[in-house]
């Protein structure tokens, strides 16, 4: 039993290797941009250790700089993490064998690559054990925290972030994320509706309201375009996993 468990942990760690390497630049980038946006090294590390969600951590950084109301920052983080609701609903039945305590822990680590690897394993007909799940999750989690700290310490040494374009890396990052969703249904009309509404709100009401107003327009437009009818949850989730 314990031999089997060790083998499962080792397999999970092997499966985590590619995503650990792939995510390293983003952990470093997050740390560097965090101090560039006025956070301390320990605040950046706290964010990585407790939120543990790359894209929404970047959104949080961006809004800290605009002096947005705290509830609006938290709400935007929630909105960007919304996709996890679908992951969570999909993965739930596959980890039905976990104890309640194990599930409580496992859901904390349900980041995009964790979901993708668990789905892949499940599709190969292999069961998802807690040992495999944590073998996959922990190396990714701890490397993310270490990269944040390294990036933040390194970011403190950069004297002219403007000349290096560092203040503009967040918009580029967000744009790349938007482009990554382009195969979703009605992506183009949603992005155009959100973008135009956001720009209008930016000039009429002012920052940071453009975020909520733009998002609401895009979401409402998506609902209008969808038409009526019902979908089973399973099918709804199979619209693809993005590497966010």
């Amino acid at each position, binding site marked *: 039993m314990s031999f089997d468990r060790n083998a499962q942990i080792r397999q999970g760690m092997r499966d985590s290797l590619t995503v650990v390497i792939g995510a390293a*630049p983003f952990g470093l*980038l997050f740390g560097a941009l965090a101090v560039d946006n006025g956070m301390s090294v320990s*605040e950046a590390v706290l964010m990585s250790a*407790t*939120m*543990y969600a790359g894209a*929404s951590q970047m959104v949080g950084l961006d809004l800290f700089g605009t002096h947005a109301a705290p509830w609006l*920052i938290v709400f*935007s*983080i*929630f*909105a*960007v993490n*919304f996709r*996890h*609701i679908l992951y969570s*609903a999909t*993965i*739930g*039945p596959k980890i039905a064998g976990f104890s309640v305590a194990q599930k409580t822990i496992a*859901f904390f680590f*349900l980041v995009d690559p964790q979901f993708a690897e668990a789905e892949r394993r499940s599709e190969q007909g292999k069961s998802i054990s807690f040992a495999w799940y944590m073998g996959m999750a922990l190396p990714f989690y701890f490397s993310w925290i270490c990269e944040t700290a390294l990036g933040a310490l390194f970011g403190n040494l950069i004297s002219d972030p403007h000349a*290096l*374009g560092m203040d503009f890396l967040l*918009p*580029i*990052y*967000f744009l*790349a*994320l*938007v*482009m*990554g969703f382009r195969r979703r*249904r009605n*992506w183009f009309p*949603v*992005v155009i509706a*959100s*973008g135009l509404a*956001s720009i209008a709100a930016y000039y009429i009401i002012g*920052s940071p309201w*453009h*975020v*909520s107003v*733009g*998002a609401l327009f*895009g979401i*409402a*437009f*998506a*609902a209008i375009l*969808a038409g009526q*009818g*019902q*979908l*089973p*949850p399973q099918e709804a989730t199979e*619209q693809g996993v993005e*590497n*966010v």
Partner: protein
Amino acid sequence: MFDSGSSVVWIILAGALATYATRVGGHLVLSRFQHIPRRVMAALDAVPAAVLASLVAPAIVSQGWAEALTLAIAAVAALRFNMAGVLLVGAASIITLRALLG
């Protein structure tokens, strides 16, 4: 280690709770439904793209030519490259264009 009066720490902790809520919420709430209305599903599906597009859109028109051109170049680069590639192209573009256009 932390300034306990700092709102940044509290916002981070609230953000962490909100994030955990999304990760556990689908299992606790969404999986209880047999069927989800198509409009609700489409709205949920659109949330991330709508939020992120709203975040980036003002940067296209509010900053300058170097920034607007960089976003156009990055959008095209995103058709070909992964995230790391897009960031490299974007960084090269903003550094060059800011140096050229002032």
